[in-house]
């Protein structure tokens, strides 16, 4: 503790001396000093405990108040443990000045030492029957804190709902009370707090929710919205309505209120509306769609916070019907927004385009647009995704390559664009030169012009080493597609002595191709097959529909380095993702922070629960799990799939059930980057002497979860642990509640049917957090 550079630790002890003095002035300053200078990390603070204890029992209420205040603001857990009894005593006093302070002090104690919560329960009995608003307010805070922390307390306090409703009603109906009035609304602080407590109490309970419906409707319709206060209350009301089990009419009312907020001039209100709409868009999608145009207008707002919220919400609202219009707006936004948004916006556009693209041409156009406007901000793995997409749309090859070529002529600074373009030119250069484009006016390009462009990329300062690799490979591929090979040979041999090791290696290898293995060249450099999208759950493996396998007889005679029994595709794939693989991993993992991009994926992941083509970014062409290890071209790349650990391995498996010889183990994966979905694989094994036939596993989860059971591997669990039946369960846990499951097992053992029910509660915390 230093002041102006000089040690001022003496100040802390002075505070203690002042606190111990009898004079009120001294005590006041002493406690103030204590709150400012001391906190739980200094050992000295414990010396205060005794003083506070004495002062809590002082005859003057202001001294008691000071002590409560200090304890409530900076009390450590040891202090709280010692003094909780005193606080509890004061909670029961009739002095309202002290009671309200004691209530908040109790809140602090509970936050620090949750086990002491039970202690305060009896004192809360008649807290709500107080007339004094201060006490009422702090009691509601106390009750809220208790209910949030303990489901038992929650159940216990549910019976208070009618009383709370009554208090709220009185507040609204009563006339003007000057003491608590803020711009014509009586005690908005208390109203908001009660609404929040009601929200917690009504959350998963139908009866309570029903009891509240009327009062919520009343508050929603009667509150004045001209001032911030009114809007604050409405905001809390809307949050409550959306969270409890309210009837649909009420929900529509809530969303309309939010819509009105959106049109408000006050930026704060708009921000708040966008935030709440974001929370509700999953459950009440249609209702929010109605306000789509207003939300899209918010994209043009000047305020950064509002723009961010609007962008997230817009992505959540994109669906098959409005995708064209929304994309147009979003692309326009991408053009004009700040750099901090561009990355998230670009990935959002890609994801939406992938899910809802009305036609391949539109999809490619959209991607081109993103690449040309925000090319340097797109994520690194979008390049392989794009390439995979392009290969899939066979009829669009000519069109695509033409557009990419034109884009390259304009601008070579955006690396992802350049990489995709050079890859495409390498693959489809013949289409480009022959001028066969159906969708667009074909342009006249000669082979030399194409080679000029590619060589320009190689030589340019703007190109990163990765891009140079792409262009060199593209030039090489063109040797089979173009007629003039000499120029290519020259380029390749020049780069054989390049400083960049990667380029040099490639050039040398290509040179070797020209000189010694010229007969293999056409086969090696043939057109790439269509790549199928890889699954991102678990280890990624390329499923290649590859018809052009190298005749393996040929390599048997040649030295291993060039034995490429795996397809040329493998070779080129590796070069594609070659050195990119490692950096790509590093970017995908950290790119799942709590950023808008991350939220986006979660949102979209939630909507498309069933899976489908994994919308998550996967470094698609991972090095194939090929057994042959051609060391030549795959130097430095390992054979094992590099991405089987994208899922944070670390959730320990558990035994869910073990009875009568049947043992069921759960193993967990979180391969899907959506942290709300847990993928559980059950392994059922049988240690008895007879097989268990007709084995059926069923599971049920609490209402807040959703369960998806995939089909089991078989119905028979072989005896004596000779094998196991596996089945995959996917659990969606949006509220991150403790995962619990009830399972029902039916099977036939030695002819007699067996049925059993069990509850599984011992899920490791990491599986649902």
């Amino acid at each position: 503790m230093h002041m102006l550079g000089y040690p001022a630790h003496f100040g802390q002890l002075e505070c203690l001396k002042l606190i111990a003095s009898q004079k009120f002035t001294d005590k006041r300053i002493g406690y103030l000093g204590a709150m400012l200078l001391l906190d739980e990390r200094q050992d000295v603070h414990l010396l205060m405990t005794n003083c506070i204890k004495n002062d809590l029992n002082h005859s003057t209420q202001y001294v008691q108040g000071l002590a409560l205040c200090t304890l409530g603001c900076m009390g450590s857990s040891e202090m709280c443990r010692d003094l909780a009894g005193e606080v509890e005593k004061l909670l029961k006093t009739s002095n309202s000045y002290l009671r309200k302070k004691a209530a908040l002090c109790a809140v602090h104690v509970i936050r620090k030492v949750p086990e002491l919560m039970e202690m305060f329960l009896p004192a809360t009995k008649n807290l709500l029957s107080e007339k004094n608003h201060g006490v009422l307010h702090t009691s509601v805070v106390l009750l809220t804190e208790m209910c949030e922390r303990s489901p038992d307390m929650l159940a216990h306090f549910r019976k208070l709902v009618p009383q709370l409703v009554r208090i709220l009603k009185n507040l609204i109906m009563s006339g003007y009370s000057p003491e608590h009035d803020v711009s014509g609304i009586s005690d908005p602080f208390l109203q908001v707090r009660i609404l929040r407590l009601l929200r917690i109490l009504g959350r998963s309970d139908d009866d309570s929710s029903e009891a509240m419906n009327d009062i919520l409707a009343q508050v929603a319709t009667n509150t004045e919205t001209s001032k911030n206060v009114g809007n604050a209350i409405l905001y809390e009301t809307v949050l409550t309505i959306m969270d409890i089990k309210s009837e649909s009419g009420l929900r529509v009312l809530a969303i309309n209120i939010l819509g009105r907020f959106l049109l408000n001039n006050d930026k704060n209100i708009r921000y708040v509306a966008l935030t709440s709409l974001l929370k509700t868009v999953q459950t009440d999608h249609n209702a929010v769609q109605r306000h789509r145009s207003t939300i899209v207008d918010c994209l043009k707002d000047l305020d950064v916070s509002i723009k961010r919220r609007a962008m997230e919400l817009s992505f959540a609202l994109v669906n098959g019907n409005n995708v064209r219009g929304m994309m147009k707006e979003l692309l326009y936004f991408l053009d004009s927004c700040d750099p901090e948004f561009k990355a998230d916006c670009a990935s959002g556009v890609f994801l939406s385009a992938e899910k809802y693209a009305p036609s391949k041409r539109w999809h490619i156009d959209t991607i081109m647009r993103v690449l040309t406007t925000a090319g340097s901000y797109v994520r690194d793995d979008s390049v392989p995704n794009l390439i995979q997409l392009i290969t899939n749309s066979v009829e669009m090859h000519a069109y695509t390559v033409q557009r990419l070529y034109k884009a390259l002529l304009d601008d070579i600074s955006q690396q992802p664009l350049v990489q995709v373009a050079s890859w495409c030119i390498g693959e489809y250069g013949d289409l480009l030169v022959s001028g066969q484009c159906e969708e667009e006016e074909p342009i006249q390009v000669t082979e030399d012009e194409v080679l000029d462009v590619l060589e320009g990329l190689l030589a340019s300062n703007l190109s990163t080493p990765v891009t140079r690799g792409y262009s060199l490979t593209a030039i090489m591929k063109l040797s089979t597609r173009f007629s003039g090979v000499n120029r290519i040979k020259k380029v390749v041999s020049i780069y054989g002595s390049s400083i960049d090791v990667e380029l040099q290696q490639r050039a040398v290898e290509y040179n070797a191709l020209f000189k010694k293995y010229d007969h293999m060249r056409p086969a090696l450099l043939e057109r790439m097959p269509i790549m199928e999208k890889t699954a991102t759950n678990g280890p990624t493996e390329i499923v290649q529909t590859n018809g052009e396998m190298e005749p393996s007889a040929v390599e048997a005679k040649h030295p291993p380095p060039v034995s490429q029994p795996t397809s040329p595709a493998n070779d080129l794939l590796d070069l594609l993702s070659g050195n990119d693989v490692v950096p790509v991993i590093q970017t995908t993992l950290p790119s799942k922070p709590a950023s808008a991009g991350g939220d986006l994926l979660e949102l979209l992941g939630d909507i498309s629960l069933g899976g489908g083509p994994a919308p998550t970014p996967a470094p698609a062409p991972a090095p194939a799990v090929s057994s042959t290890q051609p060391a030549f071209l795959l130097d430095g790349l390992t054979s094992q799939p590099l991405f089987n650990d994208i899922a944070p391995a670390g959730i320990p498996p558990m035994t869910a059930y073990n009875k009568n010889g049947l043992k069921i183990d759960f193993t967990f994966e979180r391969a899907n980057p959506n942290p709300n979905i847990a993928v559980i694989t059950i392994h059922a094994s049988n240690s008895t002497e007879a097989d268990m036939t007709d084995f059926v596993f069923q599971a049920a989860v609490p209402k807040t979860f959703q369960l998806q059971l995939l089909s089991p591997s078989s119905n028979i669990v072989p005896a004596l642990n000779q094998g196991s039946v596996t089945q995959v369960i996917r659990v969606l846990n949006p509220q991150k509640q403790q995962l619990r499951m009830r399972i029902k097992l039916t099977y036939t053992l030695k002819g007699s049917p067996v049925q059993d029910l069990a509850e599984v509660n011992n899920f490791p915390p990491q599986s649902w957090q």
Partner: protein
Amino acid sequence: MMQFMLLFSRQAKLRLQKWFVPLCDKEKKKISRELIQVILARKPKMCSFLEWQDRTIVYASLYFCCAMELQDNELITLEIIHRYVELLDKYFGSVCELDVIFNFEKTFYILDEFLLAGEAQETSKKSVLKAMEEADLLQEVQQLL
């Protein structure tokens, strides 16, 4: 729950800070410094809320800054700030920055009467001011004795 409250002038001088969570001095200074810079950089017409290091920051004009937890109602926090300013105004009689500078302990006392453990404890302006009056009286009486 409110995590901390800062009061600072346009020249980035910190006038008042009240912390409801335990943090070491270095962290407090770092947070204050960064936050002041971020807020002073915002243009006047911008929204009063921003998300920062997974807290929400609420600030009214003249740079009263409160950091809330993510699930708190931002609009009512604005009201809390307004209420606090009104209390200061009533107590000091048309308060200005000088009052805060020269009577900082009184501003703290008022804050302690209004907020405790990050929550509002008294919603009636009158009661807070009355409590302050009586406490001050007690102080003076003891002084005379």
